[in-house]
């Protein structure tokens, strides 16, 4: 299974971005192999509705969960409607978050 980590840089050593809709990158990480795909978040430039546009990008990636600092109400609803679990309030690097997630420490 894959998860999406919202980061400020294009690999796992970067910190988790604090806002979902306007984060810099989505890392779509394979939980088992830790291989990842980098998606540039084009929605961050949106005049409004960045959260919805970002949700549309992430919802197309077949991920089971999203790990982020903060998420707005629109994006939260959109992701939940897409059957994606949202784990917010997370800080530190993407790698740390991934390790915690794999250990079942993130809920």
């Amino acid at each position: 299974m894959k998860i999406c980590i919202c980061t400020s840089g294009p690999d796992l050593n970067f910190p988790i971005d604090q806002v979902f809709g306007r984060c810099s990158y989505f890392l779509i990480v394979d939980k088992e192999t830790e291989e990842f795909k980098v998606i540039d978040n084009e929605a961050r430039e949106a005049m409004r509705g960045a959260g919805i546009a970002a949700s549309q990008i992430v919802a197309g990636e077949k991920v089971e969960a999203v790990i982020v600092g903060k998420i707005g109400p629109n994006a939260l609803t959109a992701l939940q409607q897409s059957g994606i679990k949202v784990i917010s309030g997370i800080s530190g690097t993407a790698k740390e978050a991934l390790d915690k997630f794999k250990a079942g420490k993130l809920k």
Partner: protein
Amino acid sequence: MRNQKSKINNQKIIKIAITGGKGGTGKSTIAILFANKLVKEIEKVASSATRRGGGVILCDCDVECPNDYLLLGQKLKKPQKKVYAEFPKLNKTKCKKCGLCAKTCRNNAIFQPPGKYPVFIKDLCSGCGACWIVCPHGAIEPEKEEVGQIFVNKIKDNFWLITGSAKPGLEETGPIVSQTKKFALNLAKKNKANYILFDTAPGIHCPVISAILDCDLAYAVTEPTPMGAHDLNLILDLCQKLKVKTKIILNQANLGDKTEIENITKKYKIKIDKEIPYSKKLVKAYSQGKLLNFFI
């Protein structure tokens, strides 16, 4: 061509926008003072001539927070007209979940969970109608909804206040401004008014553009501060693009630093038409919500 025709029809009605970019510079205060001045001028002409002539309409186009009525000591009672807009409604029996509507929406107001029906997010929707135009299955139908109201207060025999008011939380208020303006123009024709003053919202966004569009003159009200200068620059640029002649009114002119404002007047080759010094009398009257009966 259309513009020219409407100009000929309304040649007796002079349309003036009171705008300025920055908020809190005194747009509404000046609009009211200006309206009062025009009313008095008309009364002078009327008393000397046999024919009773003209009138003034003050049109509050700051529809998200109209307050000219407060400064004129009025109350907004029953609306004279309701303003409607159209929003998308999904017909699930026709929808094929193709996702074109969600891709088209420039406001990101449509979300489509994979394999499910699109969801319209009302808070983000401007009611532009792109979704029902592009839908190849005719599955999106426009649904009418009340978005605002127009109020009329007759203040004197030759002085009317028209107030446009948007429903709180509405995303796009430009169309309400347009309809309020249209209403004001019709009232002006009916009552043979010769001036309409449009008191605009701060900023340079859609409702401000709607208010300035097609005016004969715009007054940009500003103040001698860095923010005042910054926003004056934006509003002068906008008025230039809309091809509306603009004059500058500098409020609280004796406070702050005028250098930046003067640089902008040079850039646009527009002189400061009027400087209003800081006045305690005016502030006091304003804070008491009194009818301001003087023009400096």
